[in-house]
């Protein structure tokens, strides 16, 4: 690979080669049965080269040296055609990494049989618990990735690791009621996926959903579950932490470092080394050491996050938040494992104290939120009405507002944290918010 860096020296002032080799195995469910078992293997190499401040990128589905040479030439052609970027400073320099987390090699060559067994067990268990329920969908999978990132300044970092995930989607039909699709899931760095827990939690939600309760226009406490939290924050809040947006003036958090932007029960940080993180990487997509970056500490906004490009323009340097987009080859500011710090009491305790309120499992339309100002308008579905400390049934309602207003109303976080492997990977408890204005249906 060093030869290829030397070869690229003919064309570029600076060059980076990132190679990703992956193997995924999965099995999926449709209508109470395994529908397909799949495997996917392959390699992707991304070339990023700079000549006279002109950027050129190339992406190929291969890790063969011959084809990487071809890609270097292709990137050189692209750089020649590009115009110079006067803001360009340089690719990252080598820095000290922390010790790698030992990967779980059990995940490298998982047989699909192991996943089929878990799914079949989940389907059987669910149908035993509730005969009116259909396992509409689901999937169990294991992904393994090996990457190597090197550049002409001497960065050369190899990483490997894998994660397993499991989810089921249930639809209940009883007495003319068809419940919305109800999901639950588990993701971790080993194969001990919590099949029983997933089924138990999802079946409970289906049971609640058989009873439909009308919602009304009111101001009430609302507990957001992990899926709802991850959806809303990924679109309405997290983009605002991007240093690029600070420079461009498109974040409402500009000039607010050190200010209170949320209630003191909320501490949010990006931490790839959290014990529950599913991808404990020590280097980001451009080889910069990753670290724990605190974004909100007890409600106070602490800092923005940066990749190499924007960090150098700003003068602070990268915070290890460069995420490679293997589609375009470019690097964008992103997060590894967003964590909301947990609290002391269980969800049950928190629900138990609510006279009238709601528990929201998921939001529809979170992706239409506006990160430029934090405004959002979402439908809570699945959502459940709580009365006198107990869940009474399913409800659907609208919440429209501003994320910074609602963050100030957070009053408690629960003790249990869940890994949400979708959208931005999040590790989050349930969060209770007071005085949420909802529009009932």
């Amino acid at each position, binding site marked *: 690979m060093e030869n290829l860096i030397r070869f690229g020296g003919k064309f570029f002032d600076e060059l980076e080669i990132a190679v990703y080799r992956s193997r995924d195995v999965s099995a999926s469910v449709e209508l109470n049965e395994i529908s397909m078992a799949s495997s996917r293997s392959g390699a992707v190499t991304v070339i990023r080269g700079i000549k006279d401040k002109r950027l050129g990128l190339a992406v190929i589905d291969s890790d063969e040296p011959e084809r990487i040479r071809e890609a270097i030439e292709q990137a050189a052609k692209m750089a020649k055609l590009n*115009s110079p970027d006067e803001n360009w400073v340089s690719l990252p320099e080598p820095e000290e990494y922390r010790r790698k987390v030992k990967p779980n090699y059990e995940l490298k060559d998982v047989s699909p049989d192991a996943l089929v067994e878990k799914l079949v067990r989940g389907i059987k268990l669910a149908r035993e618990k509730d005969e009116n329920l259909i396992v509409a969908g689901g999937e169990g999978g294991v992904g393994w990735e090996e990457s190597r990132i090197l550049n002409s300044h001497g960065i050369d970092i190899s990483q490997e690791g894998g994660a397993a995930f499991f989810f089921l989607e249930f639809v209940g039909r009883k007495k003319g009621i068809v419940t919305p699709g109800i999901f639950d899931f588990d993701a971790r760095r080993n194969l001990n996926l919590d099949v029983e827990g997933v089924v138990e939690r999802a079946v409970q939600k289906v049971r609640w959903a058989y009873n439909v309760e009308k919602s009304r226009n009111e101001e009430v406490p609302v507990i957001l579950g992990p899926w709802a939290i991850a959806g809303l924050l990924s679109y309405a809040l997290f983009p605002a932490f991007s240093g690029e947006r600070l420079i461009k003036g498109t974040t409402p958090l500009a000039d607010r470092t050190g200010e209170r932007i949320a209630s003191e029960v909320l501490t949010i940080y990006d931490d790839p080394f959290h014990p529950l993180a599913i991808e404990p990487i020590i280097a980001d997509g451009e080889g910069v050491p990753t670290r724990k970056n605190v974004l909100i500490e007890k409600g106070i906004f602490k800092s923005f996050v940066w990749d190499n490009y924007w960090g150098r323009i700003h003068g602070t340097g990268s915070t290890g938040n460069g995420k490679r987009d293997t589609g375009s080859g470019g690097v964008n500011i992103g997060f590894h494992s967003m964590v909301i710090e947990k609290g002391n009491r269980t969800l049950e305790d928190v629900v138990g104290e609510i006279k009238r309120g709601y528990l929201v499992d998921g939001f*529809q*339309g979170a992706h239409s939120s*506006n990160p430029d100002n934090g405004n959002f308008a979402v439908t809570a579905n699945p959502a459940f009405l709580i009365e006198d400390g107990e869940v009474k049934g399913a409800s659907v309602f609208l919440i429209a507002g501003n994320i910074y207003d609602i963050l100030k109303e957070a009053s408690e976080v629960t003790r249990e944290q869940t890994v949400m492997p979708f959208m931005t990977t999040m590790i989050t408890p349930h969060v209770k918010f007071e005085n949420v204005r909802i529009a009932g249906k």
Partner: protein
Amino acid sequence: MEALERALRWAEENLKVDYIELRYEDLRKTTLGLKDGVFTSFTGKLNRGIAIRVLANGAWGFSSTSDLANLEKKIEEAYKLAKAAATTKRERIELAEVKPVEDFVKSRMKVRPEETDIDEKVNHLRELERLLKEDEAVKSVQVRYEDGGGRKLLLTNEGMRIEWDYNYLYQGVYVTGKANGKLAMARDSIGAVDYGWELMTDHEPNEKVTERLLRKMHSQLKGIAPRRGEFPIVAGPIVVGIIAHEALGHLAEADLTINSPFKDLIGKRIAPEYVTMSERHVEGGFGNDRYDDEGVPVRDIRIIENGVLKGIMLNREYAHRWNMEPNGHARAESYRYPPIIRMRNTVFEPGDHSLEELIEDIKFGYYVVDFRGGQAQLNSAFQVGVQEGYVIRNGEIAEPIRDTSITGVAIEALKKISAVGNDFGLEVGFCGKGQTAFVSSGGPHMKFEGGILIG
């Protein structure tokens, strides 16, 4: 092709398969990402690989790889995966019969993207940014452009041999504007598989895209928060399209129909007689094709015909299960994915009324023109963010509204359609269902007397 034929013959002779399908792709792509004057991606891509799908013992196995050596071994892997999936299967998967096709699908583009000089592409994007930034309120512009072209092949043990001269192009633009301390964002997308670079020069020139984006952005900057609640709503073609796609179209995908309210409604009236919704070829449609990824010819379907729920989208597996004819809706994002049932171009058909007629007798209501993200549940409950909308007061379009969304249950809202416009509009985009597909959606203006909540 020869290596694929050889591997297919080997599999037929050595494995006990019901069906085997090989899909090969060799595509060359260009991605340009322009963010406020800087090209953050300027990328040439070479995507080459193969998808192998095997039906054995009544179950599917799928394997995909970018490593083209040892194809026989990869086929055997897919075969083993099928056998693993089959161990628990009670009902064997069978496929509806289709006539094997041998064909070459020519591109209908006038100027293939690869024939356009990259300088011209760069200049085009820069000009678009310049035009947008002539407006002082515009603070940030982000453009993503991608085109691709090359060869796709489909071979099956039943004798399908289809080759596509496959090409596409796409442009997505995000604009952030600021005025009087308010920030607002607007988005726009264009794309085609049948138009080449002429899409950018003739059909959707920069001036037209700029005009649309600035209108959307300013409507939000000047917009007021709407009153929450249920009011008469006139929806424009793009919003009508997203309701057709998200809230109704997905329910008519056979793999989802089975868990949706549509299951018990086929053949029944679900809307007034003047409402018809189709899944069909549309001039300029992003989902157009001659065959699907199982080699089945793509046919037009009436999902709702004169108010009655009629047709659903099928692949060969579900066509057999429902005892119907497959209609060309098995689509795969790339060689990395197996084909699944997808929409193509989902549209409401035009009616008789002018926009003025739809609006004239509304004392107070809303006109929703464009959306920012939409989502629906299998019970047809939908939520659509509105990026351009206006108040209707005393029969006239009045002030704009901002940061809002509409929500409802589509099969209830359908019954509240009181008039259908005589115009037609289309928007292109991507649909995500575990994998991405190029789609279009649209229709005429439509009036809802209720059934949609704004807030």
